[in-house]
């Protein structure tokens, strides 16, 4: 397994107000897979994604990526881990407002010793006509494409997407999902995507369902359909 999680536990609060966010989650993702974490709000899927991303820590359990455990890493090592292995896409695009599309993507490229070619990536993203525009001059879908470009340009092993279509209309959402699939196929990144939309799960190689901090099901998607065929 490229990514392995063993008995991950996480709680918030203290005393009488403890909330168990994750209760012994174990799972794995192969390199190049698209894995969708599915579940309703509060099921712990975003918490799990953040722990995988090294921006939140588990109370207990073990996480290994490409054979390397990240559980005991200090802040500097975690930062280095994120820098080398991860790309992040959020529901809110979080682009830098006074940098152009190209420059926003370069912000990601800077982190890698061997980034993808920014020009090629902009074409893959379909943003060649908008490369010199500021985020405020783009539609929501274009901004999210730019955010994906920023995440993928450093050619990370894992692309983490937290509700990437949550703020978009269905057509634009479809467009983004197709792009994520294209990136996955083109660059071979492992994609872990959090969503509460059942339809999106259909494009995944692996579907993990969470409820109340526990994995309810974890299965390979035998009937995977391309993103272009999804009915959102």
């Amino acid at each position, binding site marked *: 397994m490229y990514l392995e999680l063993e008995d991950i536990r996480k709680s918030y609060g203290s005393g009488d107000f403890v909330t168990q966010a994750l209760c012994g989650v174990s799972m794995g993702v192969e390199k190049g897979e698209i894995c969708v974490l599915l579940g309703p709000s509060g099921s712990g899927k975003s918490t799990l994604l953040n722990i995988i991303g090294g921006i939140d820590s588990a109370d207990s359990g073990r996480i290994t990526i490409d054979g390397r455990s990240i559980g005991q890493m200090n802040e500097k090592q975690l930062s280095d881990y994120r820098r080398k292995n991860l790309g992040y896409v959020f529901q809110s695009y979080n682009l830098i407002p*006074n940098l152009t599309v190209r420059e926003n993507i370069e912000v990601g490229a800077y982190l890698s010793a061997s980034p993808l070619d920014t020009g090629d990536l902009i074409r893959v993203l379909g943003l060649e006509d908008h490369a010199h525009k500021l985020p405020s001059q783009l539609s*929501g879908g274009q901004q999210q494409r730019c955010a994906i470009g920023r995440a993928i340009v450093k050619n990370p092993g894992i692309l983490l997407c937290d509700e990437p279509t949550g703020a978009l209309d269905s057509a634009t959402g479809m467009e983004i999902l197709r792009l994520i699939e294209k990136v996955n196929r083109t660059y071979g990144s492992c994609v872990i995507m959090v969503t509460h939309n059942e339809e999106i799960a259909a494009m995944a190689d692996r579907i993990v369902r969470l409820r109340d901090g526990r994995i309810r099901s974890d299965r390979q998607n035998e009937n995977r359909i391309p993103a272009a065929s999804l009915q959102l």
Partner: protein
Amino acid sequence: MKNPLRKRYLREIRQDAGKYIALFLFLTLTIGFCSGMDVASGSMISAYRESFTKYHVEDGHFLLEKEADAEILTAVKDQGAQVYPLFYQDFDQENGNTIRVYQNRSQVNLPCLMEGRLPEKNDEIVLDRLYAENNGLQEGDLCQLGDRPFTIVGTVALSDYSTMFRNNSDMMFNASVFSIALVTREAFASLDQSGLKYCYAWTYDDPPADNQESLDRSEDLMEAVLAAILGMSLEEAQARSEQVGTFMTLFEMLSGSGQGGLEHSLSQALEHFVGSDSNELKDFVPRPSNRAIMFTGDDLVTDNVFTNFFLYLLIVILAFVYAVTTRNTIEQEASVIGTLRASGYTIRELLVHYMTAPLLVSAAAAVAGNLLGYTLLKEVVVGLYYHSYSLPTYRTIWNGSAFVTTTVVPFIIILVVNALVIRRALSRTPLEFLRHDLSRQKRRGALPLPNWSFLSRFRARVLLQNIPAYLIMFIGVLLAGIMMVYGLMFSPLLAHFKEILVESRFADYQYILKDQAESDFAGAEKFAMLSLENDNEEVSVYGIREDSAYLPDLDFGARGEKVYISSAYADKYDLAPGSYIRLHEKYGDKAYTLEVGDVMYYEATLCVFLSLDHYVETFDLEEDYYNGYLSNEEIPDLDERDIATIITPEDLTLLADQLQDSMGTFFPVMSVFAVILFVLMIYLLTKLIIDRSAQSISMMKILGYSPEEINRLYNRATGIVALFSLLVSLPVSYFTLSLVLRVLLMRFNGWLTLYIAPWIYGVCLGLGLVCCLVVERIEMRRIHRIPMAMALKNVE
């Protein structure tokens, strides 16, 4: 690959131009003024020090009653020194000014020609440059010496009179009423010689290494001169050092202050030793003790200390303004920062990123400030110094230490303060940034507020949300308020001081006599006076009749052996009834410890009052001793030859006049700085609060609030805090001012009563209100520009 975030720097500066321009201008002005001050004073200190060699400045001088005979001159030479006659005469002008005339100098204390040329004809004269400026005198104008007119052909600076102290023990100097002048040798010889002063300067063949050595050697030289005067060998004179010491104290009192007037005793004492036709040493001033030479150098150095303290205070405030506004930017960009951190950007990379724009602006301001400092502002500062002191010409000297103190250190302060504040702001986890969970304290829910009106509660919430920003503003406005009070209070303070001096005078005329002289004038009352020293300065000791008509409040009978001191003395040295004061002779060994019985309201000088009997007993004088008269009118029946000096109310206000002269131009500059700082603080902080609240303001607009109503909600809170801070600054300024004035006046002889005219507080508040209204108008435009779409578009 270079970090693409660097492309943001200039864009950020452009987008936040208002903030950065304001900070740039203020920093430029501050650094410019301070570097100008440091460079100017550094260059002038250098010119001042070089002048000792360049213009062959004396190592000291002494004044004799008569022309020195060969024995005296030989005695000086035997001490390894060269001696030069520097005879002079003082001439009163019609306007009451005094001009001290020397003949052209060619050996010692050489003149630095500032304008025109030196006198060549016998009706030509050059004056001190500062005196000429202060009195509007130019080349070609006439100057009257006695009954002879002289044509002014130039102006000079004499290094032995860089500060215009008429006498070394004068309370203050005044270049508006006193000047030196040079005429040709022939012209000098042809002047009425009745007031000729036999002054001799000396220089050592082997210059002393430092002031202490100079003072030590001058003691030997003084003993040698005295021995020559007394007709003794040096060994004999040294053996009688106690008497010599006593003489010197008496000489000092006579020669310097014009308040001593013990010439009668001195003459008697000299006659006792060497007969009535001997010469007399009237003054003896080694260079380190010569305030006319040394005061300027001390002042230039002290000014630097004050300026740099002021600079660092401002820089720390500016650094915090930068840091708080940058922290605000970080809060606004929390999602971006969270994403960048989640993507692998390190805190260090982000720290460098967020510090760069402020540091770039600071660096640019430092460069601009230094350019200004070395050019325009240096000239302003030089103008201030040339307005106070009669300095020789100077050349601007690149001053490495000025660059460090006014540029490198401020830059480091900004860097460190920003690094600390921004590092702390960035020390949240990526998740906390993504969630905008940046509050240090755990959320405890909204602070309950009293049942105020909606507007008041809203403003209170704005205030509570921005406490760090308001704290910075409070400190900045506090400082601005203090500076504003400082800037405005100076002239009224001096005017008031003069008023109370005149009010508290105990007689319009104090006649100090050379020889005891009887007067039958009805209002004349005998008194005695001498000058002693505490550890710092001269103190006048008065012997007053117990039934004095001029000082009726002094009840010596009830005080026994205790003495009265003036309120100025009590204030300056924190003395109260029951305190002991120790006064000693300047050159002699005798010291007197007196117990303070009470304080008499008298602000003019530092003085001690004893009953005449107590005075005579304390100083071991004859029973009927006196050496002066108090009177409210001129005493007509005194022979001018018996009068050493007359002290009038105008003499008492010399300190105030000189402070007005030397510092009068500095304080308005401070007022301007204060207003700029005040506006800057309010502007930056108001802007910060509007920026932070842009989303809410957009929503308020959607809800139907007008920009004016929104202004009342957001900007008014800032205005209220600014005015409150200003209000607090007023009593604080009084407190700090009393401390500053105390430190300042410790350098001067005498005392100045602190007084801030009540109207100044009103003007400060008025100015503050106007500044607030101006800023509010500017910020109203910003509120107008916030689009309603902002609230609708934002997806977070």
